[in-house]
């Protein structure tokens, strides 16, 4: 095209109009955030909004809902589904699904429980065995999906059925295995000491502050895109405030029985928090996580970029069923046992629903561990709130469905502008 008649255009060495320009202060940052929201980039705001609506509705419907005892209940009740949903996120990121995750979790929990009851193993060894078993199941599923190319829906439907058979065989039809270990039981029925709770809250706040300030310093020094310092400080303050409030509420004695004080943070909370931080780190800050997003976004592009797509696909199933194992163990801790139906029924649908409500796409490429946690809390809140209302079972079904739709609807409606803005 360009004949020599065209004037040689000068080089535009650094012409990234906005990129070069950082929001200078708080005011501008707020403006930028509002622009982002208007542009449809909502982050996890809508799911949080949906959750807030649920909280308001249930607080009005029952005066027991917002008491410390019930909030502690909610935390323990949400534990298993949050972990399961978090495990599903990488699978969903690839556009796959794992229908067997719930049952795999049940089987892993059964293995852990039996290792303790029948083989007198130490809890740590037993848990390791359970999680390892989960990982192996995921590995096999992954091989079928990635190497043979059978759609994950069918492979995991087959495992969903097959693993139920294995559980039945292991613990007898209609049978159950007792969770006979205090540490495992303790995950959901015991609490951290008050002092430990405070230490945790402080460590968390300081840790977060240190990490984000360091990051900000590097970004500034290297002239990269960054948020203004005031925004960073506000975020730190927010996190610290939440950590301290939650700790303060949970560190008060919430027992109704004067002879049996219950206070402190339930162990399951730091467990879920650690998993959340870990996976957030893996998916945001490591090469592996980046590759998972890439494969989910455009498998062919990822392959052309030299990523071993099969290995990534196998790995997400391994992560999923390992997390499912942890989830199953938490569920068994809460119920005090593993039964033949553990992890069956609608467990998995609820967990996928949690991830989706949180903002994960079933078509792959979009989602993060925190989505799953928020969505898991939404689902657990529905059961928790309804439980306080003591209605007939048909009403419970109808209301659960309705509330789920409400929570997802708040999300969907607030996200709609995104498509109006032409993205996604």
């Amino acid at each position, binding site marked *: 095209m360009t004949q020599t008649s065209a004037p040689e255009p000068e080089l535009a060495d650094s012409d990234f109009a906005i990129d070069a320009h950082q929001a200078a202060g708080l005011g501008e940052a707020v403006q930028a955030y509002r622009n982002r929201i208007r542009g449809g980039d909502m982050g996890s705001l809508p799911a949080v909004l949906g959750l807030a609506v649920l909280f308001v509705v249930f607080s009005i419907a*029952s005066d*027991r809902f917002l*008491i410390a*005892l*019930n909030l502690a*209940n909610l935390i323990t*009740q949400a534990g298993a589904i949050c972990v399961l949903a978090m495990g599903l996120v990488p699978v969903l990121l690839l556009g796959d699904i794992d229908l067997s995750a719930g049952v795999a979790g049940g089987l892993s929990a059964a293995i852990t429980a039996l290792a303790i*009851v*029948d083989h007198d193993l130490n809890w740590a060894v037993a848990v390791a065995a359970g999680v390892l078993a989960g990982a192996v199941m995921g590995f096999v599923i992954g091989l079928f999906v990635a190497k043979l190319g059978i759609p994950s829906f069918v492979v995991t439907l087959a495992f969903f059925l097959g693993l139920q058979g294995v559980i*039945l065989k292991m613990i*007898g*039809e*209609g*049978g*159950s295995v*007792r969770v*006979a270990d205090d540490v495992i039981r303790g995950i*959901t*029925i015991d609490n951290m000491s008050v002092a430990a709770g405070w230490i945790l809250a402080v460590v968390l706040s300081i840790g977060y502050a240190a990490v984000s300030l360091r990051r900000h310093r590097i970004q500034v020094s290297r002239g990269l895109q960054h948020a203004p310092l005031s925004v960073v400080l506000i975020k730190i303050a927010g996190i610290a405030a939440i950590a301290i409030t939650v700790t303060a509420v949970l560190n008060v004695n919430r*027992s*109704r*029985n004067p*002879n*049996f004080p*219950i206070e402190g943070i339930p162990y399951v909370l730091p467990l879920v928090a650690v998993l959340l931080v870990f996976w957030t780190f893996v998916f945001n800050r490591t090469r592996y996580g980046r590759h998972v997003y890439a494969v989910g976004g455009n498998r062919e592009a990822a392959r052309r970029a030299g990523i071993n797509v099969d290995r990534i696909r196998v790995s997400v199933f391994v992560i999923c069923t390992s997390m499912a194992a942890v989830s199953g163990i938490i*569920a068994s801790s*809460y*119920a*005090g*046992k593993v*039964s*033949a*139906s*553990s992890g069956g*029924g609608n*467990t998995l649908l609820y967990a996928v629903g949690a991830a989706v409500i949180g903002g994960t796409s079933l078509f792959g490429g979009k989602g993060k561990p925190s989505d799953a946690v928020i969505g898991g809390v939404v689902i657990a809140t529905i*059961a*928790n709130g*309804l*439980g*306080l209302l*003591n209605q007939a*079972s*048909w009403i*419970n*079904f109808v209301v659960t469905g309705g509330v789920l739709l409400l929570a997802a609807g708040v999300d969907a409606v607030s996200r709609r502008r995104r498509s109006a803005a032409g993205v996604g």
Partner: protein
Amino acid sequence: GCGSDSDGGSGDSGKKAEGKIGVILPDTKSSVRWESADRPALEAAFKAAGVDYDIQNAEGDADKMATIADSMIADGVTVLAIVNLDSDSGASIEEKAGKQGVKTIDYDRLTLGGSADYYVSFDNTKVGELQGQGLDKCLAGKDANIIYLNGSPTDNNATLFSQGAHSVLDKVSAYKKVGEQAVPDWDNEKAVTIFEQLYTKVDGDVQGVYAANDGLAGSVISILQKNGQDGKVPVTGQDATVEGLQNILAGTQCMSVYKSAKEEAGALADAAIALAKGEKADTNGTTEDKTGNRQVPSILLTPKSITKDNVKDVVDDGGAKASDICTGSFEKLCADAGIS
């Protein structure tokens, strides 16, 4: 049906030689008994009598039960015993079987509007009554707030159990119902949350819990334990499972109901073998089928209430193995209860 002969061939299988007996068990989820007690007991009885048999499980799926029935009939069974998943699907199977000259027996659950030749069972309403009486005894008539945790809302037996319990407990004015929920699919995990929330709702002011079976009882006990109330609040159960018996020995569950599968299976085997030989079975009464408007010849068995004192009876009857119950910390409790 279209072009079919409705007078079937029933009745004229007469004094023919022995046929084959088919048994369809209902599920694996609602109770441990079907596969771990009934199946072996039936197999033993049929083997002893030297008859051909075929025992299958419908996994809680009525369609599947119909499928199994079809294939058993295709396979030439002459006597078909079913534990229906609900009366209507049971009646449809019996109707189909009857048309092909196959004798039917209702096992454990009466098929209302059905055409079974016999009914062999424990009385489910009676089970509920026993649970009510058991809880009443543990509460000893003191004022008590009671939470009811029923079985699956889609399971008619759960409805009967609950009715039986209410018929006893509602008469005692000291008892007050402070919560009642059905647990979908008898799901033990869901039961924990459901109970924890009912418990929270009433501020833990609960003195007794009706749980429809041992699995649900276990779920309740998990929450009581979390709140330091295990052993202080009596909980009922049913089925005398290992889990339930252990909880009874530990004092965290007040009672269970034992329906000797051996006994029931034996009764079924007797009736079925008699039918297969073309003979009549010994009955001990009739049961009214209001829907079908008929009296069904019945072999009715009595369930047994199990408390700490008679856990041993279950073991002796073979309803549970001592080696399963007396593990770990239960070893000593077993010894105390004289179980070995």
